[in-house]
Structure formats: C-alpha cells, structure tokens
C-alpha cells in the first residue's frame, strides 16, 4: 500500500497562509524600499509632465490615449509614478527636450525601439517598476530573458494594435510567430490545435514571461498543462499506460502534425517504437500489402485507427477488465 504524503492539503494551506502573513507583515512594518539605480536615470533629468511631451508627439498621444496604460495613468493613477504618464515609462524628460533630435542625446530618455538603442536591461527595469511579480515572477532566468529579449520585443504600449495585452501584432499568436516560425508551420499541418482558427492562443499553454517549467509551460509538467483542457485524460485510471502518465508528448506533437490526432508518427509504427512483445502482433512488420487494396490480406492493425481499433482506451481504462485498454 502506498503511504500518504506528509504534505497534506491542510498542512500546505497552513504553510502558505503563514507565508502570506509573513510577507504582508514584512511589507507593512519593514516598509522596504526598492534599490535605487546606481546611475541616475536619463542623466539625472527631472520630470516635465506629459503636456510637454504631447506638444511634439500628438500622433503618438492619439493612439496612446486608447491604451490601458493611458487609462490607468490619466483616469485613475495610484501613485506619483503613474501620474507622470509618459515619463513613468520613458523616464524624466528634461534632458531630452534640451536636444530631442541628436542621436547622441538618446541617453537622455529611455526608448523601446532598436533605433533608439536603450540597453535592454534598462528597458526591462522600467517595465518592471509596475509589472514586477505576478505572472512575471520568473522572468529572470527564463529562456526569453536569456535570449536578451526586451518587453517591447513583444509589446507595443503606445498603440492598441491588439485586442488585449498591448502587443506588437494584432494577436498573441501572430506576435509569437515573429520568432517561432516553426510552430507557425506546425499549426498549418493536417491536425493542429485550434490556434489559427482563433479559438486558442499560445498563452493558453505557455507563459512567455517565465515559468518554473521547461518551454515556459504554465503547468508544472507537460501533462498538467494538457489536462487544463483535456481533463478527461487526467484520470487516474484503474489501468494506466506508462508513457501516457509520463508525458503526452511521447506520442503527440502539441502544435500540429502531418498525422491524425497530432501524432508524432503514423500508427501502428508509433506504438511499435515501444511494443515489441511476443504476444503475436505487436512486432509484426505491417506493410503496404495489408492496406485495403494493397494486394495482400487486409489488416485491421493498419487501417483506420490502427492499434486503437481495439486498444481504444489507450489513455487509460477504468473497466476492471481493461488491462489491454479495450473497454
């Protein structure tokens, strides 16, 4: 008999509650301050107010006014940082207006384009002033951060190009495709997730801002991620299939495939990569003579769902007789 874990839900609940309490008390009593930058921002410039910015950047302001940032800064700012609007992201602008044209003076303002040339760590730091924690908790050390990506490699806070998220493209998926072309190609294959059909986004499975899992998955494992939509596959079942419990990707490509059901390889060859039993049929060489019209005896183990014509409950069976996943 398996022994229950020491980490029961009541104990974990108590531990998490204690952690939250300690964090809250610390934050209120100790009132810690975030570290101040070693180098004064924008050369020690001072704030000039958004009216001065808008005087030159009217078109940008027209678009910015439709963004959630503008709404927050202008309609319901919660602190001094937000009240300075443009300068909450770009930093104080007094040095910028002294010479707004010269490329040599670009250090006087934080910019978020390649043309402007602000170092990526500084760009990220500006965003994290407000967006620290939450779903960006694990940004540092994430594969995107290691690739030296800036927030504005995906986001454009200056205009409402996307329905949500202030993305640089019209949708989450199009934004991701700008670097992940291989996945774009996979979503165009015969079987695929409903991503290009507008029903799903990359962010349903991945957290591009970092996670504790490989490939920036939102779940702790591949399977936990898949179960968030395929809860019926979660089980646990009376009779379990080892690779299914271990990793859905043993058999499936999560993005798309040239085969049915996003499978990695056509059945029965997929199953035969592991099943070489002596039981009669697992290790046979099923070949083109066995397809209907192939010239030989038609073989049920090749056609239609192949192995799953019989072993149809391959994700697990709850039938007492389901050791072979048939009922």
């Amino acid at each position, binding site marked *: 008999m398996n022994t229950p874990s020491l980490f029961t839900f009541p104990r974990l609940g108590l531990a998490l509650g204690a952690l939250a309490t300690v964090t809250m008390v610390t934050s209120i009593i100790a009132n810690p301050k975030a570290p101040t930058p070693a180098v004064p921002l924008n050369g020690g410039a001072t704030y000039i107010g958004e009216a001065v910015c808008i005087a030159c950047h009217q078109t940008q302001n027209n678009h910015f006014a439709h963004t959630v940032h503008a709404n927050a800064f202008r309609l319901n700012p919660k602190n001094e940082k937000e009240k300075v609007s443009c300068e909450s992201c770009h930093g104080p602008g007094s040095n910028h207006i002294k010479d707004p044209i010269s490329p040599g003076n670009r250090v006087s303002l934080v910019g978020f384009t390649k043309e402007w040339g602000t170092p990526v760590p500084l760009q990220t730091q500006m965003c994290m002033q407000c967006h*620290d924690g939450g779903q960006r908790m694990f940004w540092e050390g994430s594969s995107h951060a290691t690739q030296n990506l800036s927030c504005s490699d995906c986001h454009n806070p200056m205009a409402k190009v996307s329905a949500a998220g202030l993305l640089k493209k019209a949708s989450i998926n199009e934004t991701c495709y700008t670097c992940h072309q291989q996945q774009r190609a996979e979503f165009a294959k015969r079987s695929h997730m*409903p991503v290009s059909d507008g029903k799903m986004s990359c962010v349903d499975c991945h957290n591009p801002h970092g996670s504790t899992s490989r490939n920036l998955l939102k779940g702790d494992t591949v399977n936990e991620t898949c179960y968030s939509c395929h809860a019926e596959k979660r089980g646990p079942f*009376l009779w379990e299939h080892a690779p299914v419990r271990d990793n859905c990707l043993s058999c499936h490509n999560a993005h798309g495939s040239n085969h049915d059901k996003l499978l990695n390889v056509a059945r029965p060859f997929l199953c035969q990569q592991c099943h070489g039993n002596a039981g*009669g049929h697992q290790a046979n060489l099923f070949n083109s003579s066995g397809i209907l019209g192939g010239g030989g005896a038609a073989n049920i183990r090749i056609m239609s769902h192949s192995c799953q014509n019989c072993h149809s409950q391959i994700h697990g069976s709850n039938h007492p007789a389901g050791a072979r996943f048939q009922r």
Partner: protein
Amino acid sequence: MNTRTLPFAAAAVAALFSFSRATAAPLADSAVGTGTVLGNAMTQSTRAAEPRDPEWQKAKHTPTGQMFELPPAIPKPEAVKKFANGWEYSGSLEFGYIGGDADERSAQFRTYSDPGNEAHVNTFNFTMRQPKTGHFVELTGGGAARDDQYYGVEFGRVNDWKVKLYYSEIPHVFTDRYGRLWNGVGTGNLTLLPGLTPGGTASTAADNAAVQAAALANQNTTLALKRERMGARLDVNLWTNWKGYLSYALEKRQGSRPLGSVWGLGGGTAPIEVPEPVDYDTEDILAGLMFADGLTALNLRFSASLFKNNIDTLTFQEPYRIAPPAGVTTNPAVGAYTQGRIDLTPSNTAYNLRAEFTRKLPDFHRGFLSLALSAGEWRQDDSLIPYTHIPGVALPNVTLLPGGGWDSAGSLSRRSTNAKIETRLADLTLSLNPTAALNVKLKGRFHETKNATDPYLAVNPNAVYLDADAATAGNQSRGLTFDGVTGVWGRLPNDASGNSVLLGNNANPNGNTPIKAPTFDSKQHRFGPTADYRINKTSTLNGSLEREVIERTQRERARTWEDRAKLGYVNRGLGASTVRLSYEYAQRRGTEYRASTYDGLFSSAIFPMPTAAGANVTSWAVRTNTGMRAFDLSDRNQHKGNLRVDTMLRPGLDAGVSFQAVQARHPDAAYGRSRNDLRSANLDLSWQPSPKQSAHLFYSWQWGRITQSTIANANANLTIGLVTPLGTVTPANAIAIGAAPGGPFFPLINAWTGRNEERSQVFGGGFRQDFKAASFHADFSRSIGRSRIAYDYTIGGAINAANAPLAGSRMPDLATDVDLADLSLRVPLSTGWAVRFVYRYQREVIRDWHYYNLAATPVVSANVANLPTGALLDAGPTNFRVDWYGAMLQLKF
C-alpha cells in the same frame, strides 16, 4: 455552476470584495488559466482589413529589429462620442451575407469553425468609459448563432477592479463520413438500425452484408462535438501592492466521436467503430493573491478542476455472432453477445495549491532568490462495472460463491476506483551578480508524481478453485492468495467474450495472466548552474550545466539521469542585425534496463515457473524482446543547435532567418527507436514602405526522421531442455534465452527496420494597400506535408516471399496539401459605414492509407463468411475545395 461549487465560489467572491481597494499595482495578469482569447476563424480577416493610421511615424523596430505593426486608424480625440452624462463610447459592427461553398461539409473544412452560406453577424464591439471616474464597459462578440460564436463583456474601474464574463463555442468535427449502424448516437445506449440483428444471425455472410449495406446507406453521418466555455473572472487591486483574482469557468462538451471496440481476448475479433458519446462538464476555479513591492513578490494560487462525465458507460448492440471463449462452460451461449459495454472516461477532480516567492537581495551581489512550491491532488472514484453484463458465465474448475457472479460487482476486488495521484513541486533559484558583467544562477527543481492508489487486483474474491494440488488428495475448494486477497485470479475481457483467468493446476497454469494493475510514480530532480556574461553593451554569452534525474517506479529503468550543457550567444549590435545562436548537448543514461519489470503484475507472481524437463515455460519467460528499449528511458546522446538572425535590410524592409537542427541517438537501443533527427529553416520578409502599404512573406521547411527497429516474433514454444542457438533452456536461463534477440521467439532473420521521414513546407504571405478611401488586404498560405514510412527486412523473415512483392520497401506516402487565401476590399460608404467584400479560398488534399477504400468497403473481411477483420465505419478525411465570398457591412461609431 453546480451545487458542489456554488457555496465555495460565493464565499470567495464575498471575501475578495470585503478587502479594501486602495491600490498601486496594474491589472495585467489575465494570463492565468486557459481561454485567453475570444474570436473565431473570421476574426483575423476582419481586423486585417482595417485601414492603418497614415499619420503614424515611420517604421520602427523592436529592440530585436522586427517592425512594429502599424496601428489602425482611430478617431481624433475631439471626435470621440459622448453621452450627456459624460461617458465616452465607441463601437463597431460587421454583418452581411456569405455565399458560395461555405456550406461545405468536409470534416477537414469544419474541424474548428462553422462558416455557412447565409447571413452573418460577424463581429461587434462596444466600449464605454467615464473619464471622470475611470469606469469602463467593453463588449465584444462574433459569429452570432453559429457553432463558433463568442461573446465577452468586461467592466470595472481602470487600475482598480475588473470583471470579465465570457462565452465561447468551439466546434470539433471528427468525421462527416461515418457509416452509422445505430440509433441513439450521442447517448450511452446504441440500438441497431432495423435490418441488423443484435447478436448476429446464423449466417455471418448475411451479417456482413447487412452491416455493409447499413453503413453505406448512412455514410453521411457527422460525428462531432462542441465545446461551450463560459466563465467569469474578477480582478481586484487590494491593499497597496496586493491584488487578487477569482475566476470560475464551466465548459460543456457534447457530441460523439468514433471509438474502437473489439471482442474476444483482444485478438482482433470483429472490431467495430462505435460512436462514443461525449457529455462532459468541466468546472475550473481559480483564486489567487499577488503581492509585489519592488523587493519581494509573492503569488498564492488555488485551483480546482472538477470534471464530470455525464454518461458513465456506453452500451451498444452488436450485429455479429460472437463465439464464446474457449473454456467457458455454460454461458454465454451462441448468440448471447447481443451487446457490449464500454466504461467511458470517469469523472475526476483535481486541486492544486501553489505559492511563488521572490526576494531581491540588493546588498548581496545584487542577487535574488526565488522559490515555488506547488502541491496537487487528482482523484477519481468512479463506481466499477462488472466484467460482463451476461449472467451465468461459468469457468472450468471455478466455483462461484454467492454474490460472486461475473456479471455482479461481487466479482470485483473493489467497488470503486478509489484512485489518487499527488503532485509536488519545489523550485529554487538563487541569482547573484559577482561582477557588473556576470550573472550566475543556481537552480534546483524537484517534482513528484506519486500514485497513491492501491493497485487494482484482477481477482474474483467470491470464487474458489475446484482443483487438485500435489499435497492434497482429491479436488479442493480454495482460492489462491496474493497481496492479501484470496480468490480466483484474472479477468474476463470484452464482456466475457475473452478468457484471461488463471484456471489453476487442473487447467495448466500460466505465467502471463494480468492480475494486478500497474501504478506509476516518478520523481524528478533537476539542478545546475547557469551564467550570463555581458561581453559589451550589445552582446551576451550564456551557458548552463544541468543534471536531471528521474526516478520511476514500475518502469523498465528505475532511474535515468541526463546531463545537459548549453552555450548561447546573443548580439544585438551586428550592424542592423540581431544574432542569436545556441548549442546544447545532452546525454542520458540510466540504471539497468529490466524488461521484466512487469513480472510482479502477472500470474507468474503466483505460480512459479515450472522446472521439469519438457515443461512449457513460454508464458513465464517470454514477454517482450529484451533488446527493445522504450525511447523515453533509453540512453540518448542529443545535439541541438539554433541560429536566428533578424536584420533590417533597408528602411522598411526586414528579414528574419532561423535554423534548427536536432540529432538524437539511442546507443543502447538495438531495437526500438534508435535515431531521431530534425532540421528546420525559416525565412520571413516584412516590407513596409509607407503607412499605406505593407507586405510580408514567409517560408518554412522542416525535415524529420525517426528510425526504429524490432523483431517480429516467431511462433514457438519454450520448453525446459530445448536446444536453441543461444544454448539449452534451463529454469535459470529461460528468460534470458526466451526473450532475447536471436532466441527462438525473436530470430534475427525476423528483424526489420522502419524509417519515418517527415517533410513539410509552408509558404505564405500577406499584402495590404490603403487607397485614398478604400483598403485592400490579402493573406495566403500553402502547406505541404509528406510522411514516408520505409522499411528494410529479410524476405522469409518479417515478410514471407509471397508478400514481399506486395510489401515493397515502403508504405504509400501520407500527404496533406492545405491552401488558404483570404482577400478583403473595404470601401467606405459614409463617415460611419463601409462595406467589406471578402473572398476566401480553401483547399485541402489528403492521402492517408489508413482509410484507403474504406468508403466503398467499410466491412473489411478476408472471407464474407467469416467475422470481419473489422467494421471500420469512419471512411476518413475527404479532399475539399471551397470558394466563398461575402459582402459585409461595417458600422463604426
């Protein structure tokens, strides 16, 4: 919301609202959970046709060097409409008519979308905001009254609180060419159509003919399901630096899909594809608290997923005369198998608690510490159904005690599944900056999937053997004891049309009857350092070393470990280019590979292998080729390389190029997957000479190959004293010889190798031109997928001489071509009105040998007088070509 979750959700909502709302942090954490987008296949086309703002600045690039998309034209601030009470509002509506081939039925065309030749309310949006207070309302929707419709509304106060309500439907069409044999599709009770006889008739030829006729007559049946997801989410800024969220979602899935069923012991007796009913409800609850003050950040999250299958079992009448299994003495009689029963996927629940914590350490090498803890529990406790619904089934040498009939729950070792899996995660990272240019991280991760289920025992505890043993004179009535349970061991598969019961000494015991279910646990440990070195202002070098150890129970390898070394380089300053380059080498090894790991789950755990000369020990000694390696456990050497270059060729013209290569080898896998290779190359071009014009082109090429080999088993018996090429069989070496490559069961001449080669290409692009008033947009793509399975074998081995000319050297290619073009011309009619003329072309060609000729011959049978090789009622995917066009009126205000 059902009664289980209503009190919880209500209490949680009340608790959240009871908090103060003085606040600071932004509400930008909607990425928790799934369902992150609302839209359908026509949404993108509508958006893409919108004209861009001609006054927008010249093309700007992301820090990587990719062009920002031009924003759509918007009204000037002075043109924003207002109600008398100061609320500003704007909105849009697109509706019209689509004609042409949009009614096409092909499952491939309609897999996840639902177009049609009729009037459409395609999209609508309405937004209001109150500038004085920051309150807002946003309404969106589209695809009204269609199976891919969606609606959402958000309201709240910016930077304070927000409520989101949504509803979305996703169709999923599996086939439109299913040959239906039953009434009741979509329910748990299928009754055969008139003309088909439950349990078959005395003439199998007549049954075959009747099934074929019925399948062909009803071959236009569509099997599909629809997901309806609806939910609500509340985001609230609580105290300073604290915020919280709570969400509830209900997803209903209803419909049906093809599912295989079989008879006998599993030897392929009359498999028939039945329509599996789908009637699922899944409730998802999320609640979280988040804190961040610039130094410390904390996330707490509780999630629950409650899955319910409203149809527990599928009972289906079957149209063939299934023979009783050998050894069944009294029932079922010939013709008794009138119906079968499948236990459908069981209801289950999952709960998870998660805490994430980070703390900056500004005074300690500018470091930070992060910790994530997560604990989950998945439960499933469905009532178990008996082995068969047929009463009176009896076996030789077995006496059923009162209540122990195989058609009763008394024949089971327990009445419900009572299964539980626990998951645990601990993830720790310490990051330090020893110098201004160097960052070092130490990472460690532990994850456990612990199956806390008592393994199911396939035993009838209310039955005894009536047999003899060596020590007792005469027959005895007794059960065999294993794992503390006494009874008759084994199971009756497939509604008792098969017999896999250990029948005791009088009926030649065997060693390969499954008597116990496996439970799989795993523990993963991953740890190692990473380093990032900033070479100069624009370039960085990064590297990591990592060891991953996975311990598994019940698998062929108790422990595997994989070492990874990775090196990466990023340079943003190579002129107008950004270069990203990485290489990773990984090597996996493990403890001894034990093909016999499942021995304790078979009757060999009860009856030891016979040792007498001449004894047949096949069922004890021969299970699987001992040279076979499961590819997720076998040794592996893997190289992985990535190169990506983004460059601004000239103002307004960008290019992005990427390459990837993966090479994996499994050096210990003489049989099984031995090689896995992947190559890909991608090219993107973006051109934006002015705000009025833009174009992009892309091309992706992928190639992959998986090599596998195995040995087709020979028909043989392994007996003690048998002389084989590997030696004379003894009790001590029976397993080593019997299951070894080159032994009597796996002669090397039967070895064969397969190579699955995938080739894919996707070419596509888009073009947009804004004229003085009108705007035009086009998108197109062409996807070509080919999959070729080739094989090498010895004639007379895996394939005999007669079949070799038919088998050749490969299967026919699996091929898929997918073409898509979407064109829109938008012409303004007045200040607020416009018309969008839309044309879409879609074409898909599929060649899949799995379905060759099944449309004409759903009943596959070598001889019409025999039970069918299979009644394969899904005729498979069809090619289609669709042109549809529409005129959509657009209103903007």
